[in-house]
């Protein structure tokens, strides 16, 4: 069972087994691949959808970076792509805002929430806890198809005559409520809200499933304190989503009422487009509270799964137990808890009571402590390891680097006094693109490279992975480090161009440089795309456990069939991080190996279990 037998023969056989499986289960193509209830297929569906959205979101960022890097240039060559949004070679300023808005929405929700949690929670939870499938395969299927409908609506909104939503991904009313104020707040915003409502349904269906599965369906012997950190992180992510997303749904509903049914939850005393509106008594700040009550946990929904993924990959490839397993769980619990009480640090200068500001500054800066503990633990895991730099490991080490670089500036932004100057400048843009944008993307790449063999039964091409990694890693720093300088200089976000201000009429070269770096880094992602699709069909065949890892998913056949394990479910005896244990013949002991078989390496307190 412990799959140390890595040979070509085994490989071919499991290929055959899989083939037999296909005949055993009499499923039509549609049942098997489209309306599938198998968690592995659903995970792949989320992954492909996430990749699709990432390409769209990335392309959008290249477009608006072109405008920022070359404000004087004419973009007639974009006319075939953008049509009327390019007027005489100039990007329409409202379309620019729409691009920024959609880039944020797509990346945060569709790629880094659905694409990330949807892929890895679905794929890994049953496989790593030794379950045949999710608690409810049907709900799981619904979760994907709700997401799919949300995606279709959001995608359609891009092609509307009046453009997609354009008031920023945070859709603050009144701007998002008044089509007179910006054309994107017409049909585009309606579709944004409908799409997000469906998206939230999808997240809740998924979240309920992840939580239920982790609590109820762990295999024999797998207590919570023996869970891989990946499962802990997915579990906490699902809890966050379940508590936070309904609040966004309520905000969206109230906004729909204000937009369509004449209520005044967020609107008051408005004179716009030559007309005084009748709305009275509403508060735009209320929307911000509701939005950020989701919005802040949301950034942890994005980053927590990658904490787990990266911990797992670093331990496996450093051939060392993760340092401070319980501290890692504790810090994740702390972060998850605190993430609910820091939302108003996005609102220090929104006009809310300054006393609230001081409370939220205190709570925000506390989060730095568990985050620091995680970083120190990752670094300690590398110490005296025996590191194998697979592409997944490269991305994981870089993840730690990006998490530090982006995280430390959070200490500045979380300080309400300093936030006065830096709020809504490029300093914020640089901060969150490093810490939750790039770092989460790196975690996601690491996960794809690492679990690709289990997903598709083949290996990704390593050399291309290295190339992809190095260009991306260098590119990301070249893009986002200089943005801090621009932010310190006070450059505001979401500006079409800064040339109208003498104060901001500098750093022109820097912006051009950032744009060039961004386009190169984006282009490098096509190495990944090629590698990904090429390897699905023509990659080197994988073995059962190519990384010599301990967790249960590597005890399944190369292409796990429906039900995951052909025989009985594995039984768990130990924690997942017995790497390089002194006295053991191999440098890893999978979780399903009983202590009775490893007497040479058992620690004193483990003798009782023999």
């Amino acid at each position: 069972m412990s799959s140390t037998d890595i040979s070509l023969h085994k490989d071919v056989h499991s290929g055959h087994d899989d083939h037999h499986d296909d005949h055993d289960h009499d499923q039509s193509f549609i049942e098997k691949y489209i309306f599938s209830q198998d968690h592995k297929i659903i995970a792949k569906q989320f992954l492909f959808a996430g990749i699709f959205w990432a390409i769209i979101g990335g392309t959008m960022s290249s477009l608006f970076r072109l405008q920022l890097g070359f404000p004087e240039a004419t973009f007639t060559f974009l006319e075939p792509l953008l049509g009327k949004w390019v007027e005489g070679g100039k990007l329409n300023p409202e379309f620019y805002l729409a691009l920024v808005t959609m880039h944020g929405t797509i990346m945060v929700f569709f790629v880094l929430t659905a694409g990330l949690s949807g892929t890895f929670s679905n794929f890994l939870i049953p496989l790593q806890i030794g379950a045949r499938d999710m608690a409810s395969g049907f709900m799981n299927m619904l979760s994907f198809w709700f997401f799919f409908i949300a995606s279709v609506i959001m995608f359609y909104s891009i092609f509307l005559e009046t453009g997609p939503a354009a008031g920023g991904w945070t859709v603050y009313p009144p701007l998002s409520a008044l089509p007179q104020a910006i054309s994107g707040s017409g049909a585009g915003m309606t579709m944004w809200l409908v799409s997000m409502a469906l998206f939230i349904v999808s997240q809740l269906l998924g979240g309920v499933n992840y939580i239920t599965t982790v609590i109820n369906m762990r295999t024999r012997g797998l207590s919570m304190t023996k869970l891989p950190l990946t499962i802990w992180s997915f579990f906490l992510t699902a809890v966050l989503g379940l508590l936070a997303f309904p609040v966004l749904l309520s905000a969206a509903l109230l906004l729909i009422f204000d937009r369509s049914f004449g209520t005044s939850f967020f609107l008051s005393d408005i004179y716009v487009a030559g007309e005084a509106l009748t709305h009275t008594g509403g508060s735009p700040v209320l929307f911000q509270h509701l939005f950020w009550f989701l919005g802040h946990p949301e950034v942890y929904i994005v980053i927590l799964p990658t904490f787990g993924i990266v911990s797992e990959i670093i331990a496996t490839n450093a051939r060392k137990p993760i340092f401070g397993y319980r501290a890692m769980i504790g810090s994740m619990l702390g972060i998850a808890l605190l993430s609910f009480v820091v939302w108003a640090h996005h609102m220090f200068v929104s006009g809310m009571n300054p006393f609230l500001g001081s409370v939220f500054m205190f709570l925000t800066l506390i989060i730095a402590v568990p985050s620091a503990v995680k970083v120190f633990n990752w670094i300690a895991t590398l110490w005296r390891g025996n590191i194998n730099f697979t592409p997944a490991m490269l991305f994981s080490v870089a993840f730690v680097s990006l998490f530090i670089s982006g995280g430390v500036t959070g200490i500045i932004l979380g300080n309400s006094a300093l936030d006065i100057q830096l709020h809504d400048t490029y300093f914020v843009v640089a901060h969150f693109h490093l810490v939750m944008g790039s770092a989460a993307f790196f975690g996601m790449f690491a996960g794809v490279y690492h679990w690709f063999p289990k997903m598709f039964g083949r290996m990704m091409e390593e050399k291309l992975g290295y190339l992809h990694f190095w260009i991306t890693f260098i590119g990301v720093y070249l893009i986002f480090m200089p943005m801090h300088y621009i932010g310190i200089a006070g450059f505001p976000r979401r500006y079409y161009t800064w040339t109208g201000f003498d104060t901001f009429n500098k750093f022109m070269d820097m912006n051009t440089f950032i744009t060039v770096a961004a386009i190169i880094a984006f282009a490098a992602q096509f190495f990944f795309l090629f590698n990904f699709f090429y390897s699905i069909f023509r990659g080197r065949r994988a073995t059962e456990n190519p990384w010599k890892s301990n967790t249960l998913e590597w005890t399944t056949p190369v292409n796990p069939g429906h039900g995951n394990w052909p025989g009985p479910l594995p039984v768990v005896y130990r924690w997942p991080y017995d790497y390089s244990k002194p006295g053991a013949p191999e440098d890893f002991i999978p979780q399903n190996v009983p202590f009775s078989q490893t007497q040479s390496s058992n620690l004193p307190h483990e003798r009782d279990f023999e």
Partner: protein
Amino acid sequence: MITIAVALSIILLLVILYLLFRIQVLASIFKGSYRADIGKSNKVNAALFIAFFLIMGGLFVWSFLDAQDDMILPVASEHGIAIDSMFWLTMAVIGFVFVLTHILLFLYSYKYQHQEGKRAFYYPHNNKIEIIWTVIPAVVMALLVFSGWKTWAKITSPAPDNAVVVEVMGKQFNWLTRYPGADNKLGLVKHTLIDATNEFGLDLTDQNAQDDFAGEPSAFHVPKGVPVLLKIRSRDVIHSVFLPHFRVKMDAVPGMPTTFWFIPTKTTAEMQSETGNANFQYELACTEVCGRGHFAMKLNMIVDEPEEYQKWVEAQQKKTFVSQLQQGAPADSTAAVAMNSTTDAAGATTPAPKQ
């Protein structure tokens, strides 16, 4: 035609790249290195981390120093000095952590790269270390929180009674300012009273409104060395008042007036000589996305010596809203036209020189 040629050459390029890739794969299979467990690449990648650290670290230091002059805006308010010193102190703290953790991260990655026959050190946990590196960040954070609290409390404390009051109102897409006049009280406004001439929606029947007057459309004036209280509001969507040189920022929210007070320490003229830029102007920018013209919502702020300011106020005081609006009452339309043209001037972003 050219598009087709470009597309064709891109396709050809991709095909060539693909063939090179296939040749490389086939060659490595032939050499037998394709299946090697941990090969030379591991050493290369480990070394590249060190190279990355040195080169990118060097670039970072160089670019930071190079950008320093452009990056640091001269500060012109009292609390701005406190904010700046706290900013650079925090930067030093996080800079230290940043450098230290990166040295360890990349050094360990290089030093503990895979070596044949070596085994990693089984070291699952050490509670003492965990406690140490929990407590140290906690203490540092506590210190930062306390100093942050002190500064924040000072900045957000109620404005002194002698503060000069200026109302700043945001609208799509320009800023308008209003002064309370001799009584130091701003008159009532209602959004239902807004029209093309009465842009503030001023209630002309209100006693306090009688002596209110507007700042010039291209710039508004404040005195140096005296507390200035900005009463901020918006009449359509959320805007945000940002005075970068004064470290001032506060959202303008429809239906919910906000305030921010500060003490300017340098007049426009002093800043012109300090920066060596004779055309220097303090600018007010919008930092909350508000629509198409968000990037062009600019208003200049002129800081005068108190005596100059007083002179300006006296000149301006004659042009109260009441006199302007009543002049342009129904029958007489010329004043309305004049008001409209000033509105247009406010919309344009041409800086108006003070002299």
